[in-house]
């Protein structure tokens, strides 16, 4: 009973919803999709970090800008949103700074006003405000998880200076001034790097009109260049002394590329077949890493000696779980909006249906090659514990 059902369930297609994609004349990109979540919507502003350089002296300015910008020009965004039952979340990945607001569709205008507020030229932050925020930053730094430390180490190994941590350097952040942060804000929120995604119970044309009204007045800016992340050929092994376990990573050319999709399936297969292993990824169409992590020492020991035939036996599991993951991402307006705000800006041809179709056609050979890239001989390996 179960195996027959599985065969049928595994390849359900993702239905296409009414959808609009448009790039405004100034470069602002919009992705608007209707979803059958009665009365609900999710609005995402993703500001691409392409072209926003981080040096030793400025590493962390992006993160500091996120903290300050999220309050809004009058520092009242949260109170305005929460007074009508909505909430703002903000996060910074290596590729984008992402602001998300969820709530009832009737409050779409308020949500768009809030992200316009964030993206508008920075207010006059004072040195006192920056120093106060640095106190919170130091507390956040102290709370960085072992996973954060492992992934930072892996990215540094893979890409050296082009793989800097998303958190930043407290030392560098301590030198930030109002002028330097305003400059960073302007770089981040330049029009050509902005992507606005709305997924919810709305008429897509009406949603587009509201976005146009607010964002078409932003000055045009030069197109952003995809970051070049040169591989650090020396970077294969590293250590994190303050945590246990191991992280293994493989370089991919994007989640829309066969290398990324095969690696995704391999990561899920490993998580299903080996105790204590979980996949780690931030979806992007740019070169990056997919990782698998275990907090249990020795979790990978049986895996490294597996033959191709043994690796092949996990193909169906990996494919099923990867498809399930994509379905999960696409099931809710919030995760769908967040994913498409970033991915669709990076690759305008990308749709959920395309991603689903590409997952299905990953071959067993491609899967085996991806699995081998997680074995010790080929993977980027970060080990925990005292070295």
């Amino acid at each position, binding site marked *: *009973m*179960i195996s027959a*059902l*599985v065969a049928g*369930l*595994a390849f*359900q297609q993702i239905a296409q919803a009414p959808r609009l994609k448009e790039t405004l004349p100034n470069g602002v990109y919009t992705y608007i999709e209707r979803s*059958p979540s*009665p009365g*609900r919507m*999710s609005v995402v502003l993703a500001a691409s970090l392409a072209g926003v350089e981080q040096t030793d002296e400025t590493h962390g300015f992006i993160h500091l800008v996120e903290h300050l910008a999220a309050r809004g020009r009058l520092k009242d965004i*949260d*109170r305005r949103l*929460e*007074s*009508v*039952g*909505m*909430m*703002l979340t903000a996060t910074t990945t290596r590729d984008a700074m992402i602001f998300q607001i*969820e*709530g*009832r569709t009737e409050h779409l205008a308020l949500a768009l006003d809030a992200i316009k507020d964030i993206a508008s030229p920075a207010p006059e932050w004072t040195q006192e405000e920056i120093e*106060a925020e640095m*106190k*919170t*930053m*130091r*507390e*956040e730094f*102290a*709370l960085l*998880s*072992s996973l954060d430390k492992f992934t930072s180490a892996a990215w540094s190994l893979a890409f050296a200076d082009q793989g800097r941590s998303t958190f930043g350097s407290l030392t560098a952040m301590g030198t930030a001034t109002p002028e330097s942060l305003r400059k960073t804000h302007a770089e981040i929120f330049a029009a050509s790097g902005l992507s606005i995604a709305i997924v919810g119970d709305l008429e897509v044309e009406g949603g587009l009109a509201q976005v146009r009204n607010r964002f078409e007045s932003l000055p045009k800016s030069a197109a952003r260049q995809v970051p070049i992340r040169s591989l650090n050929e020396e970077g294969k092994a590293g250590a994190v002394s*303050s*945590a*246990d*376990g191991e992280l293994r990573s493989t370089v991919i050319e994007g989640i829309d590329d066969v290398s990324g999709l095969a690696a995704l399936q391999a990561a899920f297969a490993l998580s*299903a*077949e080996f*105790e*204590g292993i979980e996949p780690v990824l931030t979806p992007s169409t740019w070169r990056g890493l997919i990782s698998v992590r275990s*907090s*249990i*020492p020795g979790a990978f020991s049986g895996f490294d000696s597996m033959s191709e035939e043994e690796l092949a036996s996990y193909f*169906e*599991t990996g494919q*099923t*779980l990867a498809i*399930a*993951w994509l*379905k*999960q991402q696409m*099931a*809710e*307006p*919030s995760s769908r909006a967040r994913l498409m705000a970033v991915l669709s800006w990076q690759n305008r041809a990308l749709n959920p249906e395309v991603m689903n179709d590409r997952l299905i056609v990953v071959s067993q050979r491609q899967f085996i090659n991806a699995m081998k890239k997680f074995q010790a001989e080929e993977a980027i390996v970060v080990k925990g514990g005292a070295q």
Partner: protein
Amino acid sequence: MISALVAFALIAPQPAGPKLTILPDPNAKQVVLTAAVTIPFEPKAREAAAWRVLPYMLMRESKEFTRSQLLMYGSQGGYQPVAYGTGDLIMVQIVMPPDGFEVGGELIESILMRPAMRLEHLTEAIKAAGSDKKDAWGEALDPIRPPYEKISLNLVKDLHALSFAPQRISLTVTGPVEANAVTEYFSTVFKTQLSARRSPAQFDLEAPELQFHDVPMRTYEVQGDPIKMTEAGSGAKLLAMHGLGAGKSSSVYRILREKNRWSYRQEAFLWPSAQGWTPRIMMIRQETEADEELLLPMIDSLLVDVESWTESDLARIKTLAKAWFDGQPVDGVIWIGAQGPLGGGARQEGLLSAYTQSVFGSVWSRERLWQMMRDTNLDDLKSAAKQILTTGKTRMIPGQAR
């Protein structure tokens, strides 16, 4: 949508089977099966350890399905099956596609009633419990330090048998299901007979509590008494916790983080326990050699803020609470596990239903919870918040100084 349909919830007591709640939702895209089980007694030290490895053991393998099969068959709805626990509660959930109800039923029954329980699974579970160094926040959420090295497989098996007798399981099924079909199906399963006696571990000492974090972080906590849903004033307490903890306009965020700059992470929330939702207000910050004692200042500063609440604050608190109770994707303060606040959606409805059925003896839907709180006035709101802050148990766990 689901909360509107709760009026049609069907509760199907089975003489020797689980307490079954069915929440039909013909528009839902998934069938969600959720089980809740509480520990039948206050656990001593080794029992506390055994309880904490049980979720791992349940999902590791059953008599019918390998771990890989459980994950593969149980992930068809887009989410991997999960089992997790707190000190006295275990939740299990499986999400299936609309036509996957019977497969889900087969899986969850196998997981709950016939875990394989091999010695190597226990070894793995203990290794995972010991080596997965929780961050300081995770340690503070569950500060019990049970003696994992002293538990036996028989102890875990006995605890499972005592706790997972079918009539002790609360099982909720939500989604596009026919209630009669669900009732009929579950009348044919959960027939495994489990029996055990409480082991000599009941004469253990109490499980010790964590005395300090081995990282330079310090945690502060005020913990109120579990809220009994039928007690007078329960609604005001629930709403007060929203005022203290919901969103960035909450007291803990505005005062502890933004005004005093004491912490990056601070929360006020309702922790799920077998006795009811327990109010907890927590803050974590770096341990420094010159660190001042902040427990009383934390409480005092929150009391000052509570005293300043106005009708405008009451309206804002109610609006945000109602958004959560309407199923909007905002962070509320109700938790059903250590992963954080319960959100919206079918999976969350399943967790809420199964937990409340198990702990309170009846299903408390979002609508029902909101009805308890909606008429709270400002004076009652402030009194409830102050009572939680001033009469709660306090705990400060220091860390190693830098």
